[in-house]
Protein backbone atom coordinates (compact mmCIF):
# COMPACT_ATOMS: atom_id res chain seq x y z
CA UNK A 1 0.00 0.00 0.00
CA UNK A 2 2.90 2.35 0.68
CA UNK A 3 4.59 1.61 -2.59
CA UNK A 4 5.58 4.70 -4.43
CA UNK A 5 4.55 4.67 -8.03
CA UNK A 6 6.96 7.37 -8.99
CA UNK A 7 9.15 5.34 -11.31
CA UNK A 8 8.53 6.82 -14.74
CA UNK A 9 6.14 4.65 -16.62
CA UNK A 10 6.82 3.80 -20.25
CA UNK A 11 4.58 6.39 -21.77
CA UNK A 12 4.71 9.04 -24.41
CA UNK A 13 3.54 11.89 -22.25
CA UNK A 14 6.26 14.54 -22.64
CA UNK A 15 6.68 15.98 -19.12
CA UNK A 16 6.07 12.85 -17.11
CA UNK A 17 9.34 13.21 -15.26
CA UNK A 18 8.73 16.75 -14.04
CA UNK A 19 5.20 15.93 -12.98
CA UNK A 20 6.39 12.83 -11.23
CA UNK A 21 8.94 14.82 -9.26
CA UNK A 22 6.36 17.42 -8.22
CA UNK A 23 4.03 14.74 -7.09
CA UNK A 24 6.74 13.11 -5.07
CA UNK A 25 7.46 16.39 -3.27
CA UNK A 26 3.74 16.88 -2.68
CA UNK A 27 3.49 13.38 -1.30
CA UNK A 28 6.42 13.86 1.07
CA UNK A 29 5.12 17.22 2.27
CA UNK A 30 1.65 15.91 2.96
CA UNK A 31 2.96 12.80 4.66
CA UNK A 32 5.12 14.99 6.89
CA UNK A 33 2.18 17.21 7.75
CA UNK A 34 -0.02 14.24 8.62
CA UNK A 35 2.74 12.76 10.78
CA UNK A 36 3.10 16.08 12.60
CA UNK A 37 -0.65 16.18 13.30
CA UNK A 38 -0.65 12.58 14.46
CA UNK A 39 2.21 13.41 16.84
CA UNK A 40 0.24 16.41 18.13
CA UNK A 41 -2.83 14.24 18.75
CA UNK A 42 -0.74 11.74 20.65
CA UNK A 43 0.99 14.44 22.70
CA UNK A 44 -2.15 15.61 24.52
CA UNK A 45 -2.15 12.72 26.96
CA UNK A 46 1.44 13.55 27.83
CA UNK A 47 0.44 17.20 28.18
CA UNK A 48 -2.30 16.20 30.61
CA UNK A 49 0.03 14.01 32.64
CA UNK A 50 2.80 16.60 32.83
CA UNK A 51 0.76 19.73 33.51
CA UNK A 52 -1.77 18.25 35.92
CA UNK A 53 0.98 16.50 37.87
CA UNK A 54 3.32 19.48 38.08
CA UNK A 55 0.49 21.70 39.26
CA UNK A 56 -0.75 18.95 41.55
CA UNK A 57 2.49 18.62 43.48
CA UNK A 58 2.92 22.36 44.15
CA UNK A 59 1.00 22.23 47.47
CA UNK A 60 3.30 19.46 48.69
CA UNK A 61 6.65 21.01 47.80
CA UNK A 62 6.19 24.75 48.35
CA UNK A 63 5.13 26.63 51.45
CA UNK A 64 2.06 27.94 49.57
CA UNK A 65 2.68 31.65 50.30
CA UNK A 66 3.45 31.17 53.99
CA UNK A 67 0.40 28.98 54.53
CA UNK A 68 2.65 26.00 55.02
CA UNK A 69 3.45 22.89 53.08
CA UNK A 70 0.73 20.27 52.69
CA UNK A 71 1.80 16.93 54.10
CA UNK A 72 1.48 14.13 51.53
CA UNK A 73 0.59 11.48 54.09
CA UNK A 74 -1.92 13.79 55.71
CA UNK A 75 -3.44 14.48 52.29
CA UNK A 76 -3.75 10.81 51.46
CA UNK A 77 -5.12 9.72 54.83
CA UNK A 78 -6.83 12.82 56.15
CA UNK A 79 -10.44 12.82 57.25
CA UNK A 80 -11.28 16.52 57.04
CA UNK A 81 -11.44 18.87 54.06
CA UNK A 82 -11.79 22.54 54.86
CA UNK A 83 -10.84 24.18 51.60
CA UNK A 84 -12.04 27.72 51.06
CA UNK A 85 -13.08 28.42 54.64
CA UNK A 86 -9.79 28.36 56.46
CA UNK A 87 -6.60 28.55 54.54
CA UNK A 88 -4.53 26.19 56.58
CA UNK A 89 -2.44 23.60 54.88
CA UNK A 90 -3.32 20.83 57.34
CA UNK A 91 -6.99 21.05 56.42
CA UNK A 92 -6.68 19.15 53.18
CA UNK A 93 -7.28 15.52 54.00
CA UNK A 94 -8.52 13.57 51.01
CA UNK A 95 -8.33 10.12 52.57
CA UNK A 96 -12.06 10.04 53.31
CA UNK A 97 -12.76 11.22 49.77
CA UNK A 98 -10.93 8.17 48.40
CA UNK A 99 -12.94 5.88 50.66
CA UNK A 100 -16.21 7.65 49.77
CA UNK A 101 -15.48 7.50 46.04
CA UNK A 102 -14.69 3.78 46.04
CA UNK A 103 -17.62 3.12 48.35
CA UNK A 104 -20.29 4.80 46.23
CA UNK A 105 -18.92 3.27 43.02
CA UNK A 106 -18.89 -0.18 44.60
CA UNK A 107 -22.46 0.19 45.86
CA UNK A 108 -23.64 1.51 42.49
CA UNK A 109 -22.07 -1.51 40.80
CA UNK A 110 -24.06 -3.78 43.13
CA UNK A 111 -27.16 -2.33 41.47
CA UNK A 112 -26.04 -1.72 37.90
CA UNK A 113 -24.11 -4.96 37.38
CA UNK A 114 -26.94 -7.46 37.95
CA UNK A 115 -29.53 -5.22 36.33
CA UNK A 116 -27.25 -4.55 33.35
CA UNK A 117 -26.29 -8.19 32.79
CA UNK A 118 -29.88 -9.39 33.14
CA UNK A 119 -31.04 -6.71 30.71
CA UNK A 120 -28.31 -7.73 28.26
CA UNK A 121 -29.35 -11.39 28.53
CA UNK A 122 -32.94 -10.32 28.03
CA UNK A 123 -32.09 -8.37 24.88
CA UNK A 124 -29.73 -10.95 23.41
CA UNK A 125 -31.52 -14.20 24.23
CA UNK A 126 -34.81 -14.06 26.00
CA UNK A 127 -36.97 -11.24 24.65
CA UNK A 128 -39.08 -11.69 21.51
CA UNK A 129 -37.58 -9.84 18.53
CA UNK A 130 -39.73 -6.72 18.74
CA UNK A 131 -39.26 -6.31 22.48
CA UNK A 132 -35.54 -6.92 22.14
CA UNK A 133 -35.30 -4.18 19.54
CA UNK A 134 -37.25 -1.78 21.73
CA UNK A 135 -35.07 -2.55 24.74
CA UNK A 136 -31.91 -1.97 22.75
CA UNK A 137 -33.22 1.44 21.70
CA UNK A 138 -34.00 2.24 25.32
CA UNK A 139 -30.46 1.33 26.38
CA UNK A 140 -28.99 3.39 23.54
CA UNK A 141 -31.09 6.37 24.64
CA UNK A 142 -29.93 5.97 28.23
CA UNK A 143 -26.35 5.91 26.97
CA UNK A 144 -26.76 9.11 25.00
CA UNK A 145 -28.27 11.19 27.82
CA UNK A 146 -25.61 13.61 29.14
CA UNK A 147 -24.56 13.25 32.76
CA UNK A 148 -25.84 16.70 33.72
CA UNK A 149 -29.37 15.54 32.83
CA UNK A 150 -28.97 12.49 35.05
CA UNK A 151 -27.86 14.83 37.82
CA UNK A 152 -30.83 17.13 37.27
CA UNK A 153 -33.34 14.27 37.34
CA UNK A 154 -31.72 12.77 40.42
CA UNK A 155 -31.86 16.15 42.14
CA UNK A 156 -35.46 16.74 41.08
CA UNK A 157 -36.90 13.25 41.62
CA UNK A 158 -34.74 11.20 43.94
CA UNK A 159 -33.76 13.83 46.49
CA UNK A 160 -37.35 14.38 47.66
CA UNK A 161 -37.99 10.63 47.66
CA UNK A 162 -34.89 9.88 49.67
CA UNK A 163 -35.70 12.69 52.04
CA UNK A 164 -39.14 11.23 52.75
CA UNK A 165 -37.71 7.73 52.94
CA UNK A 166 -35.15 8.85 55.50
CA UNK A 167 -37.87 10.51 57.53
CA UNK A 168 -40.03 7.40 57.30
CA UNK A 169 -37.12 5.35 58.60
CA UNK A 170 -36.64 7.73 61.46
CA UNK A 171 -33.38 9.30 60.36
CA UNK A 172 -32.44 12.67 58.99
CA UNK A 173 -31.15 13.55 55.56
CA UNK A 174 -29.96 16.84 54.24
CA UNK A 175 -32.79 17.39 51.76
CA UNK A 176 -32.05 13.98 50.31
CA UNK A 177 -28.44 14.78 49.44
CA UNK A 178 -26.82 11.53 50.42
CA UNK A 179 -24.69 8.51 49.59
CA UNK A 180 -27.93 6.82 48.54
CA UNK A 181 -28.65 9.49 45.92
CA UNK A 182 -25.10 9.32 44.54
CA UNK A 183 -25.32 5.53 44.33
CA UNK A 184 -28.61 5.69 42.41
CA UNK A 185 -27.37 8.28 39.92
CA UNK A 186 -24.13 6.35 39.32
CA UNK A 187 -26.04 3.08 38.93
CA UNK A 188 -28.33 4.68 36.35
CA UNK A 189 -25.37 6.04 34.41
CA UNK A 190 -23.38 2.77 34.49
CA UNK A 191 -26.32 0.66 33.41
CA UNK A 192 -26.19 1.36 29.64
CA UNK A 193 -22.41 0.76 29.52
CA UNK A 194 -22.65 -2.60 31.26
CA UNK A 195 -25.69 -3.63 29.24
CA UNK A 196 -24.21 -2.71 25.86
CA UNK A 197 -20.85 -4.41 26.44
CA UNK A 198 -22.45 -7.49 28.01
CA UNK A 199 -24.91 -7.82 25.15
CA UNK A 200 -22.09 -7.92 22.61
CA UNK A 201 -20.26 -10.50 24.75
CA UNK A 202 -23.38 -12.65 25.10
CA UNK A 203 -24.13 -12.49 21.40
CA UNK A 204 -20.64 -13.58 20.47
CA UNK A 205 -20.83 -16.80 22.50
CA UNK A 206 -20.30 -19.80 20.22
CA UNK A 207 -23.64 -21.32 19.20
CA UNK A 208 -22.07 -24.76 19.54
CA UNK A 209 -21.83 -24.35 23.28
CA UNK A 210 -25.52 -23.60 23.51
CA UNK A 211 -26.35 -26.58 21.35
CA UNK A 212 -24.17 -28.82 23.46
CA UNK A 213 -26.03 -27.71 26.56
CA UNK A 214 -29.44 -28.19 24.97
CA UNK A 215 -28.41 -31.61 23.70
CA UNK A 216 -27.61 -32.56 27.29
CA UNK A 217 -31.22 -31.98 28.21
CA UNK A 218 -30.76 -28.53 29.71
CA UNK A 219 -33.64 -26.13 29.20
CA UNK A 220 -33.01 -22.94 27.20
CA UNK A 221 -33.11 -20.86 30.36
CA UNK A 222 -30.64 -23.15 32.13
CA UNK A 223 -28.43 -22.87 29.05
CA UNK A 224 -28.58 -19.07 29.09
CA UNK A 225 -27.76 -18.75 32.75
CA UNK A 226 -25.23 -21.55 33.17
CA UNK A 227 -23.41 -21.75 29.86
CA UNK A 228 -23.92 -18.49 27.97
CA UNK A 229 -23.17 -16.23 30.93
CA UNK A 230 -20.17 -18.36 31.88
CA UNK A 231 -18.80 -18.16 28.35
CA UNK A 232 -19.42 -14.41 28.11
CA UNK A 233 -17.87 -13.84 31.53
CA UNK A 234 -14.74 -12.06 30.43
CA UNK A 235 -16.61 -9.68 28.11
CA UNK A 236 -19.13 -8.92 30.84
CA UNK A 237 -16.30 -8.24 33.25
CA UNK A 238 -14.71 -5.88 30.73
CA UNK A 239 -17.98 -3.94 30.61
CA UNK A 240 -18.02 -3.68 34.38
CA UNK A 241 -14.44 -2.39 34.41
CA UNK A 242 -15.33 0.25 31.83
CA UNK A 243 -18.35 1.27 33.89
CA UNK A 244 -16.30 1.52 37.08
CA UNK A 245 -13.74 3.75 35.34
CA UNK A 246 -16.48 6.10 34.20
CA UNK A 247 -18.28 6.10 37.53
CA UNK A 248 -15.06 6.98 39.36
CA UNK A 249 -14.57 9.99 37.07
CA UNK A 250 -18.16 11.20 37.00
CA UNK A 251 -18.35 14.71 38.40
CA UNK A 252 -21.32 16.96 37.66
CA UNK A 253 -24.18 14.54 38.29
CA UNK A 254 -22.58 13.43 41.54
CA UNK A 255 -21.95 17.00 42.68
CA UNK A 256 -25.66 17.84 42.39
CA UNK A 257 -26.76 15.17 44.86
CA UNK A 258 -23.75 14.52 47.11
CA UNK A 259 -24.18 17.32 49.63
CA UNK A 260 -20.46 18.24 49.98
CA UNK A 261 -19.48 16.57 53.19
CA UNK A 262 -16.45 18.17 54.83
CA UNK A 263 -15.30 15.17 56.81
CA UNK A 264 -15.70 11.46 56.68
CA UNK A 265 -15.63 8.69 55.61
CA UNK A 266 -19.37 8.91 55.06
CA UNK A 267 -20.67 5.36 55.01
CA UNK A 268 -24.28 5.91 56.10
CA UNK A 269 -26.73 5.69 53.20
CA UNK A 270 -28.63 8.79 54.27
CA UNK A 271 -25.58 10.84 55.27
CA UNK A 272 -24.26 13.57 53.03
CA UNK A 273 -21.12 12.58 51.21
CA UNK A 274 -18.40 13.97 48.95
CA UNK A 275 -16.28 12.31 46.32
CA UNK A 276 -12.96 13.30 44.81
CA UNK A 277 -14.70 14.75 41.77
CA UNK A 278 -17.48 16.56 43.63
CA UNK A 279 -14.87 18.24 45.83
CA UNK A 280 -12.93 19.30 42.74
CA UNK A 281 -16.01 21.15 41.51
CA UNK A 282 -16.34 23.16 44.69
CA UNK A 283 -15.19 26.69 45.35
CA UNK A 284 -14.80 27.63 41.73
CA UNK A 285 -14.18 31.27 42.59
CA UNK A 286 -10.49 31.07 43.47
CA UNK A 287 -8.13 31.34 40.56
CA UNK A 288 -4.82 31.07 42.38
CA UNK A 289 -3.31 29.96 45.65
CA UNK A 290 -3.47 26.70 47.46
CA UNK A 291 -7.22 26.29 47.10
CA UNK A 292 -6.73 26.39 43.36
CA UNK A 293 -3.67 24.18 43.17
CA UNK A 294 -5.05 21.56 45.52
CA UNK A 295 -7.69 20.84 42.88
CA UNK A 296 -4.92 19.57 40.64
CA UNK A 297 -3.68 17.40 43.49
CA UNK A 298 -7.17 15.92 43.66
CA UNK A 299 -7.00 15.42 39.89
CA UNK A 300 -3.75 13.48 40.23
CA UNK A 301 -5.29 11.50 43.07
CA UNK A 302 -8.36 10.73 40.92
CA UNK A 303 -6.21 9.49 38.05
CA UNK A 304 -4.19 7.36 40.46
CA UNK A 305 -7.36 5.86 41.97
CA UNK A 306 -8.73 5.10 38.50
CA UNK A 307 -5.48 3.56 37.29
CA UNK A 308 -5.00 1.41 40.39
CA UNK A 309 -8.63 0.26 40.39
CA UNK A 310 -8.39 -0.57 36.71
CA UNK A 311 -5.19 -2.48 37.24
CA UNK A 312 -6.60 -4.46 40.16
CA UNK A 313 -9.84 -5.26 38.33
CA UNK A 314 -7.96 -6.42 35.25
CA UNK A 315 -5.77 -8.55 37.48
CA UNK A 316 -8.86 -10.12 39.02
CA UNK A 317 -10.35 -10.53 35.57
CA UNK A 318 -7.34 -12.51 34.40
CA UNK A 319 -7.49 -14.67 37.52
CA UNK A 320 -11.21 -15.24 37.16
CA UNK A 321 -10.81 -15.86 33.44
CA UNK A 322 -8.48 -18.74 34.16
CA UNK A 323 -10.50 -20.45 36.83
CA UNK A 324 -13.79 -21.46 35.34
CA UNK A 325 -16.25 -21.57 38.15
Amino acid sequence: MHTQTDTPLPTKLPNIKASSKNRRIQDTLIKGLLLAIALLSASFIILIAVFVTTRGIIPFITDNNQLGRVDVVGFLTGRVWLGGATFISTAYGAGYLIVNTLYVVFLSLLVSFPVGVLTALFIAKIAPAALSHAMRTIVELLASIPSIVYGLVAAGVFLPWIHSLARAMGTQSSGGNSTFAVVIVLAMMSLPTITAVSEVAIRSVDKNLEHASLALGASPTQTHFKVVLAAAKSGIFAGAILAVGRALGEATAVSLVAGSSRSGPNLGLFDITATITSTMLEGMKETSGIDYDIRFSLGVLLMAVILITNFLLNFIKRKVGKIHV
Partner: protein
Amino acid sequence: MENKPIFTIDNLTVTYGQTVALENINLTVNRHAVTALIGPSGCGKSTFIRCLNRMNDLIPDCHVDGCICLGDEPCHHEDYDVISLRKRVGMVFQKPNPFPMTIFDNVAYGPRCQGIKNKAVLRDIVENALKQAALHDEVKDRLDTSALELSGGQQQRLCIARALAMEPEVLLMDEPTSALDPIATQKIENLISDLKKRYSIIIVTHSMQQAARISDYTAFFYMGKLIEYGKTDLIFSLPKHKQTEDYITGRFG
Protein backbone atom coordinates in the same frame (compact mmCIF):
# COMPACT_ATOMS: atom_id res chain seq x y z
CA MET B 1 -36.64 -55.99 23.92
CA GLU B 2 -33.08 -56.54 22.89
CA ASN B 3 -34.05 -57.15 19.30
CA LYS B 4 -36.42 -54.27 19.03
CA PRO B 5 -35.05 -51.32 17.07
CA ILE B 6 -34.14 -48.23 19.11
CA PHE B 7 -35.33 -45.79 16.45
CA THR B 8 -38.04 -46.37 13.90
CA ILE B 9 -38.30 -43.65 11.28
CA ASP B 10 -41.27 -43.54 8.94
CA ASN B 11 -41.74 -41.19 6.00
CA LEU B 12 -39.47 -38.51 7.44
CA THR B 13 -39.41 -35.33 5.35
CA VAL B 14 -37.57 -32.22 6.50
CA THR B 15 -37.83 -28.83 4.82
CA TYR B 16 -36.04 -25.54 5.51
CA GLY B 17 -38.42 -22.94 4.17
CA GLN B 18 -38.69 -23.90 0.49
CA THR B 19 -35.69 -26.25 0.45
CA VAL B 20 -36.24 -29.93 0.97
CA ALA B 21 -33.40 -31.30 3.10
CA LEU B 22 -34.65 -34.85 3.63
CA GLU B 23 -37.26 -36.65 1.62
CA ASN B 24 -39.30 -39.64 2.68
CA ILE B 25 -36.75 -41.45 4.83
CA ASN B 26 -37.65 -44.87 6.20
CA LEU B 27 -35.16 -46.47 8.52
CA THR B 28 -34.87 -48.60 11.64
CA VAL B 29 -31.85 -48.17 13.85
CA ASN B 30 -30.73 -51.19 15.83
CA ARG B 31 -30.02 -51.31 19.53
CA HIS B 32 -26.46 -51.76 20.85
CA ALA B 33 -24.91 -51.33 17.47
CA VAL B 34 -22.96 -48.63 15.70
CA THR B 35 -24.83 -47.17 12.76
CA ALA B 36 -22.78 -45.00 10.42
CA LEU B 37 -24.34 -42.35 8.22
CA ILE B 38 -22.28 -41.58 5.14
CA GLY B 39 -22.75 -39.46 2.07
CA PRO B 40 -21.37 -36.33 0.41
CA SER B 41 -21.64 -32.90 2.06
CA GLY B 42 -25.13 -31.51 2.06
CA CYS B 43 -26.78 -34.89 1.58
CA GLY B 44 -28.87 -34.45 4.71
CA LYS B 45 -27.09 -36.81 7.09
CA SER B 46 -26.46 -34.08 9.68
CA THR B 47 -30.04 -32.91 9.36
CA PHE B 48 -31.12 -36.48 9.94
CA ILE B 49 -29.08 -36.96 13.08
CA ARG B 50 -30.32 -33.63 14.44
CA CYS B 51 -33.90 -34.79 13.99
CA LEU B 52 -33.26 -37.67 16.35
CA ASN B 53 -32.79 -35.39 19.38
CA ARG B 54 -34.86 -32.59 17.91
CA MET B 55 -32.01 -30.08 17.66
CA ASN B 56 -33.77 -28.96 14.49
CA ASP B 57 -36.40 -27.37 16.73
CA LEU B 58 -33.89 -24.54 17.14
CA ILE B 59 -34.01 -23.60 13.48
CA PRO B 60 -36.98 -21.28 13.02
CA ASP B 61 -38.20 -22.27 9.54
CA CYS B 62 -37.37 -25.97 9.81
CA HIS B 63 -40.37 -28.21 9.30
CA VAL B 64 -40.40 -31.92 10.10
CA ASP B 65 -42.99 -34.35 8.73
CA GLY B 66 -43.35 -38.04 9.34
CA CYS B 67 -42.82 -40.17 12.38
CA ILE B 68 -39.79 -40.86 14.53
CA CYS B 69 -40.21 -43.37 17.30
CA LEU B 70 -37.75 -43.82 20.13
CA GLY B 71 -38.49 -47.37 21.17
CA ASP B 72 -42.27 -47.40 20.89
CA GLU B 73 -42.92 -43.74 21.59
CA PRO B 74 -43.31 -41.23 18.82
CA CYS B 75 -40.83 -38.61 19.98
CA HIS B 76 -41.34 -35.91 17.36
CA HIS B 77 -44.61 -35.00 18.89
CA GLU B 78 -45.76 -31.72 20.42
CA ASP B 79 -46.63 -33.51 23.64
CA TYR B 80 -43.33 -35.34 23.93
CA ASP B 81 -41.06 -33.37 26.26
CA VAL B 82 -38.01 -32.41 24.25
CA ILE B 83 -35.86 -32.24 27.37
CA SER B 84 -36.56 -35.83 28.37
CA LEU B 85 -35.89 -36.86 24.76
CA ARG B 86 -32.48 -35.21 24.89
CA LYS B 87 -31.80 -36.93 28.20
CA ARG B 88 -32.33 -40.26 26.48
CA VAL B 89 -30.52 -39.30 23.28
CA GLY B 90 -27.08 -37.76 23.91
CA MET B 91 -25.10 -35.92 21.29
CA VAL B 92 -21.44 -35.25 20.53
CA PHE B 93 -20.61 -32.49 18.12
CA GLN B 94 -18.16 -32.08 15.26
CA LYS B 95 -15.88 -29.67 17.08
CA PRO B 96 -15.08 -30.41 20.71
CA ASN B 97 -17.14 -27.86 22.64
CA PRO B 98 -16.48 -28.15 26.35
CA PHE B 99 -18.11 -25.43 28.46
CA PRO B 100 -15.80 -22.81 29.93
CA MET B 101 -15.90 -24.53 33.31
CA THR B 102 -13.83 -27.08 35.18
CA ILE B 103 -13.63 -30.66 33.94
CA PHE B 104 -15.80 -31.78 36.82
CA ASP B 105 -18.45 -29.14 36.18
CA ASN B 106 -18.57 -30.03 32.49
CA VAL B 107 -19.44 -33.65 33.22
CA ALA B 108 -21.72 -32.77 36.12
CA TYR B 109 -23.55 -30.17 34.03
CA GLY B 110 -26.29 -32.45 32.67
CA PRO B 111 -27.13 -34.14 35.98
CA ARG B 112 -27.10 -30.77 37.73
CA CYS B 113 -29.56 -29.42 35.19
CA GLN B 114 -31.81 -32.32 36.17
CA GLY B 115 -31.70 -31.10 39.73
CA ILE B 116 -29.13 -33.46 41.21
CA LYS B 117 -27.30 -31.54 43.93
CA ASN B 118 -25.82 -34.25 46.17
CA LYS B 119 -22.03 -33.95 45.96
CA ALA B 120 -21.30 -37.65 46.49
CA VAL B 121 -23.80 -38.68 43.83
CA LEU B 122 -22.36 -36.18 41.38
CA ARG B 123 -18.83 -37.38 42.10
CA ASP B 124 -19.84 -40.95 41.35
CA ILE B 125 -21.58 -39.94 38.13
CA VAL B 126 -18.60 -37.90 36.96
CA GLU B 127 -16.06 -40.61 37.80
CA ASN B 128 -18.14 -43.26 36.11
CA ALA B 129 -18.68 -41.17 32.98
CA LEU B 130 -15.00 -40.26 32.73
CA LYS B 131 -14.04 -43.92 33.11
CA GLN B 132 -16.44 -44.93 30.37
CA ALA B 133 -14.99 -42.24 28.12
CA ALA B 134 -11.46 -43.54 28.86
CA LEU B 135 -10.48 -40.14 30.18
CA HIS B 136 -10.47 -40.79 33.90
CA ASP B 137 -6.82 -41.78 34.25
CA GLU B 138 -5.64 -38.72 32.38
CA VAL B 139 -7.65 -36.12 34.30
CA LYS B 140 -8.44 -37.64 37.69
CA ASP B 141 -5.91 -35.37 39.43
CA ARG B 142 -7.05 -32.17 37.84
CA LEU B 143 -10.83 -32.26 37.82
CA ASP B 144 -10.83 -28.68 39.13
CA THR B 145 -8.86 -27.23 36.23
CA SER B 146 -10.47 -25.65 33.22
CA ALA B 147 -11.70 -28.02 30.54
CA LEU B 148 -10.28 -25.64 27.96
CA GLU B 149 -6.75 -26.62 28.99
CA LEU B 150 -7.21 -30.17 27.68
CA SER B 151 -5.96 -31.23 24.26
CA GLY B 152 -8.42 -31.48 21.37
CA GLY B 153 -8.78 -35.25 21.64
CA GLN B 154 -9.18 -35.09 25.40
CA GLN B 155 -11.78 -32.35 24.99
CA GLN B 156 -13.77 -34.54 22.62
CA ARG B 157 -13.63 -37.48 25.01
CA LEU B 158 -14.73 -35.08 27.75
CA CYS B 159 -17.71 -34.16 25.58
CA ILE B 160 -18.47 -37.86 25.22
CA ALA B 161 -18.18 -38.29 28.99
CA ARG B 162 -20.46 -35.29 29.42
CA ALA B 163 -23.07 -36.98 27.24
CA LEU B 164 -22.61 -40.34 28.99
CA ALA B 165 -23.15 -38.76 32.41
CA MET B 166 -26.81 -38.47 31.47
CA GLU B 167 -26.92 -42.27 30.98
CA PRO B 168 -28.58 -41.95 27.60
CA GLU B 169 -29.84 -44.84 25.52
CA VAL B 170 -28.52 -43.45 22.28
CA LEU B 171 -25.38 -41.50 21.50
CA LEU B 172 -25.47 -39.33 18.39
CA MET B 173 -22.08 -38.34 17.04
CA ASP B 174 -21.81 -35.73 14.32
CA GLU B 175 -18.40 -36.26 12.70
CA PRO B 176 -16.75 -36.48 16.13
CA THR B 177 -13.22 -36.97 14.81
CA SER B 178 -13.14 -34.54 11.91
CA ALA B 179 -11.32 -31.91 13.96
CA LEU B 180 -8.83 -34.33 15.51
CA ASP B 181 -5.44 -35.79 14.60
CA PRO B 182 -5.03 -39.50 13.71
CA ILE B 183 -3.93 -40.63 17.18
CA ALA B 184 -6.82 -38.88 18.92
CA THR B 185 -9.12 -40.27 16.23
CA GLN B 186 -7.84 -43.76 16.96
CA LYS B 187 -8.62 -43.38 20.64
CA ILE B 188 -12.15 -42.19 19.95
CA GLU B 189 -12.76 -45.06 17.53
CA ASN B 190 -11.63 -47.59 20.14
CA LEU B 191 -13.89 -45.90 22.61
CA ILE B 192 -16.87 -46.15 20.27
CA SER B 193 -16.30 -49.87 19.86
CA ASP B 194 -16.29 -50.24 23.66
CA LEU B 195 -19.36 -48.12 24.16
CA LYS B 196 -21.63 -50.00 21.81
CA LYS B 197 -22.05 -52.71 24.41
CA ARG B 198 -24.05 -50.32 26.52
CA TYR B 199 -25.32 -47.71 24.10
CA SER B 200 -26.79 -47.48 20.64
CA ILE B 201 -24.52 -45.24 18.62
CA ILE B 202 -25.34 -43.31 15.49
CA ILE B 203 -22.34 -41.64 13.91
CA VAL B 204 -22.10 -39.27 10.97
CA THR B 205 -18.76 -39.59 9.24
CA HIS B 206 -17.02 -38.33 6.17
CA SER B 207 -14.49 -41.12 6.22
CA MET B 208 -15.47 -44.34 4.49
CA GLN B 209 -12.65 -46.17 6.23
CA GLN B 210 -13.95 -45.04 9.58
CA ALA B 211 -17.45 -46.24 8.75
CA ALA B 212 -16.05 -49.57 7.63
CA ARG B 213 -13.84 -49.91 10.71
CA ILE B 214 -16.30 -49.16 13.47
CA SER B 215 -19.88 -49.53 12.28
CA ASP B 216 -22.20 -52.51 12.18
CA TYR B 217 -24.73 -50.84 9.92
CA THR B 218 -24.28 -48.15 7.31
CA ALA B 219 -26.78 -45.81 5.74
CA PHE B 220 -25.86 -43.95 2.56
CA PHE B 221 -27.58 -40.63 1.98
CA TYR B 222 -27.54 -38.73 -1.26
CA MET B 223 -29.36 -35.50 -2.16
CA GLY B 224 -31.73 -35.78 0.81
CA LYS B 225 -32.67 -39.36 0.10
CA LEU B 226 -31.70 -42.59 1.82
CA ILE B 227 -30.16 -44.57 -1.04
CA GLU B 228 -29.06 -47.69 0.72
CA TYR B 229 -29.04 -49.10 4.21
CA GLY B 230 -27.78 -52.39 5.54
CA LYS B 231 -25.00 -54.29 7.26
CA THR B 232 -21.73 -52.48 6.84
CA ASP B 233 -19.81 -55.42 5.34
CA LEU B 234 -22.56 -55.90 2.77
CA ILE B 235 -22.71 -52.24 1.81
CA PHE B 236 -18.97 -52.07 1.36
CA SER B 237 -18.56 -55.41 -0.40
CA LEU B 238 -21.77 -55.69 -2.40
CA PRO B 239 -23.45 -52.30 -2.79
CA LYS B 240 -26.79 -52.65 -4.50
CA HIS B 241 -26.91 -49.18 -5.98
CA LYS B 242 -24.57 -47.61 -8.48
CA GLN B 243 -24.44 -44.33 -6.51
CA THR B 244 -23.37 -46.13 -3.36
CA GLU B 245 -20.67 -47.98 -5.21
CA ASP B 246 -19.41 -44.79 -6.83
CA TYR B 247 -19.30 -43.03 -3.47
CA ILE B 248 -17.50 -45.73 -1.48
CA THR B 249 -15.00 -46.32 -4.19
CA GLY B 250 -14.27 -42.62 -4.45
CA ARG B 251 -15.47 -42.33 -8.04
CA PHE B 252 -17.99 -39.76 -7.09
CA GLY B 253 -18.77 -36.57 -8.88
